[in-house]
């Protein structure tokens, strides 16, 4: 406390967002509890250790928290200098998948380094935030023109292409694209162009769906089948609709109050990868609608803290960094829950801080570190 007063005397009091950290810790701890509940059966069956997933996730979380602390104490302008390096590193990692990637569940998405598996697509998400924020600062008001917008989007395109082509991971590609979109939207003063882009995307999606439905019989690849399963999961109950349908069963059977933590039946092998993308379904089953709403509200509060920090950021770069991180988290939460509730077709997107996945949680925590770093440089007089 004494420290605080001295800072105040120098009128250099530093703003510190305790609430942000508190919400974050709540989400992380809750996530670990739920992860253990969901994965213990799978862990004991496949690895003979019910805490198998928990231990690994806990390790990644602790590692991530340490990195978060380091990043939080580094001045965020450092990333302005490192941005190209980070970007190239992400590209390199993606390329390394081609020779060294490990195939898990039919998809080549991971690289093993010293016994630790890394998902390069996660690094790409961080890289695009760091790079694009600086680019948008430099572009300034040029972003308002179509040409400027194209310049801003340019670095994202190769990343999105590589993620989709090399790893076949559509969801990560969508997330990188969405982060780009949101950052550009906030940086520009225009609404019209973005509305046009959204409407165009919706039109394309609708057309695609229409074609898929038309050519029902003719093999449209597994993506086509996913669309069909989305429209009518019951009809594809034993195929592509299985996971979604089981998730819906989980949500529905949980009711409003849930079955109680640890009581889920669907996690006993019925929902494939329950500890990953479908963890939210099990959360709904165990703690019910009420519990699920609490989780969503926690995420909303977290995002609200980002808005506050971005608004008070000392400069544009800092603000855009925060907006990038915010969009990353918000998009993943929205898409994940949308998939679980069958609002959009099934595509593998993990729930931030809660789903099992080391790379994801480490990158997310580093990003939180970025936000904290920005937030640390807010002076009290700057606070509105």
């Amino acid at each position, binding site marked *: 406390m004494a420290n605080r007063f001295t800072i105040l005397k120098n009128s250099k009091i530093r703003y510190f967002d305790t609430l942000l950290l508190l919400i974050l810790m709540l989400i992380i701890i809750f996530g670990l509890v739920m992860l253990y509940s969901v994965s213990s059966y799978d862990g004991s*069956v*496949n690895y003979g250790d019910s805490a198998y997933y928990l231990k690994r996730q806990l390790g990644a979380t602790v590692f991530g928290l340490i990195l978060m602390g380091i990043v939080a104490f580094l001045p965020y*302008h450092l990333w*302005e200098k490192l941005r190209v390096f980070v970007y190239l590193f992400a590209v390199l990692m993606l390329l390394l998948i081609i020779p060294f990637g490990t195939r898990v*569940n*039919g998809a080549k998405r991971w690289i093993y380094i010293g016994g630790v598996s890394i998902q390069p697509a996660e690094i790409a998400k961080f890289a695009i935030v760091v790079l694009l924020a600086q680019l948008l*600062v*430099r572009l*300034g008001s040029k972003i308002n023109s179509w040409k400027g917008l194209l310049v801003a989007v340019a670095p994202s395109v190769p990343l999105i292409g590589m993620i989709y082509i090399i790893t076949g991971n559509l969801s990560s590609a969508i997330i990188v694209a969405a982060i780009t979109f*949101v950052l550009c*939207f*906030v*940086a520009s*003063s225009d609404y019209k162009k973005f509305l046009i882009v959204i409407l165009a995307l919706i039109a394309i999606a609708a057309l695609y769906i229409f074609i898929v439905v038309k050519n029902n019989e003719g093999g449209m690849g597994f993506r086509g089948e996913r669309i069909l399963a989305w429209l009518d999961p019951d009809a594809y109950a*034993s*195929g592509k609709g*299985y*996971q979604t349908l089981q998730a*819906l*069963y*989980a*949500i*529905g*059977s*949980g*009711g*409003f109050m849930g079955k109680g933590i640890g009581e889920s*039946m*669907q996690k*006993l*092998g*019925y929902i*494939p*990868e329950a500890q990953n993308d479908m963890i939210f379904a099990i959360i*709904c089953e165990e703690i*019910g*609608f009420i519990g699920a709403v609490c989780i*969503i509200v926690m*995420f*909303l509060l977290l*995002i*609200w803290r980002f*808005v506050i920090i*971005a*608004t008070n950021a000392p*400069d*544009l*770069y*800092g*603000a*855009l960094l925060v*907006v990038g991180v915010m*969009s990353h988290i*918000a998009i993943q*939460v*929205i898409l994940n*829950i*949308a998939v679980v*509730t069958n*609002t959009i077709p099934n595509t593998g997107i993990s729930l931030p801080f809660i789903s099992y996945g080391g790379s994801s949680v480490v990158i997310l925590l580093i990003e939180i570190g970025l936000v904290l770093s920005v937030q640390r440089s807010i002076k009290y007089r700057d606070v509105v």
Partner: protein
Amino acid sequence: MKNNDRRKFTMKMQKKLMVLFLVVAALFLFLIFRLYTITRDNGDSYRRQILSQQKYDSTVIPYKRGSILDTNGSVLASSEKVYNIILDSVALAKNAENPETTFQTLRTELGIDVTKARDYFEANKEKSRYYVVAKKFTYDQVQPLMELLDDKESDVTGLWFEDEYQRVYPGGTLACDVIGYTTSDNSGLYGLEQYYNAELSGVPGRTYGYMNEEGSLERTTVPAEDGNSIVTTIDANIQSVVEKYLRKFNEQYANNAHFGNGANNVGCIIMNVHNGEVLAMASYPDYDLNNVRDKSKLIGRQLLTEDGKYAYDEETGTKIYITEENVDSIEGDALYKNFDALWKNYCISDAYEPGSVSKPLTVASAIESGAITGNETYDCGGFLEIGGHKIHCHNRYGDGRLTVTEGVERSCNVAMMHIAQAMGVRNFTKFQHIFNLGLKTNIDLSGEARTNTLIYTASNMNASELATCSFGQGYNCTMIQMISAFSSLINGGYYYEPHMVKKIINSSGATIENIEPRLLKQTISQETSNKIIEMCNQVVTGEYGTGKTARPAGYIIGGKTGTAQTLPRGNGEYVVSFLGYAPYDDPEIAIYVVVDRPNVFAQDDAKYATRIVRSILTEVLPYLGIFQTEELSEKEKKELEELQIELITPQRNEEEEENPENAEGGEEQQPEEPAPSNNEIWKTFKIDPVTGYAIDPNTGDYVDPVTGATIGYKMEENVQTDENGNQTFSNENNIKVAGEGSNNGEDEDAPW
């Protein structure tokens, strides 16, 4: 820093950020709404869906419940794999040329009535894959069918087998009260099955299937973990000898004085006095563990009503017994109560007034507390007046001057009352506590009765209660309490916690836990113990000993008889017992037989118990390697030879049972050497040729020709008024029965 690097986050951008936030919030809200609609609209149907697929995709693998073994490893209870035959209608319709072949095979091979299965198959050809055709076949039975199913040539198909375990009790009724039984869902009820349920139970395994990302079914199996087995201290050989003689007793006395079993209950415990291991524990009536709901086993018992009290005829007020005619009319709660009474273990669950077998406890307490030395003499005039009540000795004519030893030998109440008076209420109740009376023995069986409210405490015991408690009337105990306390009297004063299980082994036979004897306390000193042994030996060997008939040929044993009145006093109903040990000089085992209301006209005769003890010990002592020490008389030799023949050729068993009365009767009337003295006037009474008892010419009462005990005597009389005869024992009614095993406790009329 460059200028453009320090550009601010403009108001416009802040506004856009707010728009963005609102969009995010709106999307969140929309998702919450989605969740809400899913929960609201589909909650119930999805819940059902989950349960139904649970059954379809995953199967439980049953575990094998652990066995119960006797001390030598013989199986008392085990679980055997049985096979249920399941019909897969879809597969049968698809693969069989003629489905009828399969049904015919089932009929011829296993004798199953297949009409139902056939109808079901016809109706569900397209959809059903699971229909239980028949249950519980052994491997030998289904083995030919398995071969046919594997045989590609045969047209038998569409069937598979589901494993299950069935609890089997090879001994049937053997040790039924000790073992208890298992319900079909593998949970133990009564006895060891209940007490050790957690040990015996395993963990069921599971085979479950799920769809992987390619949409194909994957199966994973978690194997079942079998339960642990328990090795009991019961010796099946001793146990079956005990049960044989309890059954014989019943055959002999059933439907004797009235319709019904030979006694309400007959119980027997044999215990190793040096470690508290129970070698045998049995009670009659028994029941078949493989068929526990066999109503015919209830026949001969006194009928219980729905609230667990004895039923009485409304008009005549007489007891109602369960007969072949009325057994089928017992239903619902009443049936359960009657079964419960049958299933529970009399030896641990029922409390009763022990009577004179407790006299050694009284004497030991008095010596140990220093109130007497054991060398005192007491004058018995046939009764003692305490607190205005005349409390009688069972020998109303008085035994004259008796030493303490003679008091025990002749089971003199007056001597005991004097001894108890000398020691006082405080010491008496203190020693009851030391002997664990009123406390659970914590034997490892389920259903042990609580008797804490059935004994007096120092604060609520008055002089007359002290007097009656000195000879075992007025308080209640269970058989296991009494034999455990008595064992400590004769083994040098060591009170062991009685126990039934000595070892727990896992499914592969490795020992998990050895259960060592638990020495709880020293009740009395070695010297006192030696004195008690001397006194108790006199009961069997002494001239006036009440327990002579308990002595097996060729052995000397010690012990104490008991003849306890039940409530209400004067109902002519008695609990007779014998609590003994062998060998007499260095006791190794203790044996306790209690006959609860023998089905005879004059119940107050401990010989009903001593004869059972004699028969059991005659076979058990040689088995235990205890050698004969005494010369055999001609008669005894002949008897033993007959027993040998009986044991070798069981056919003769039935022939001999036709006239067992004569064989036993002869011994009963065995003329004692006349040793008349002044105070033994009963020896001058005329012997009634029908009953074998002497008749008192003054009162017309039957009198035991040896001990002088009046048969059907009333121990106590109210000196003041005869009408209020019950008042002398009015305190009895204040003792509430809280024991689990006492279902008739609050019923005043209920006999103990």
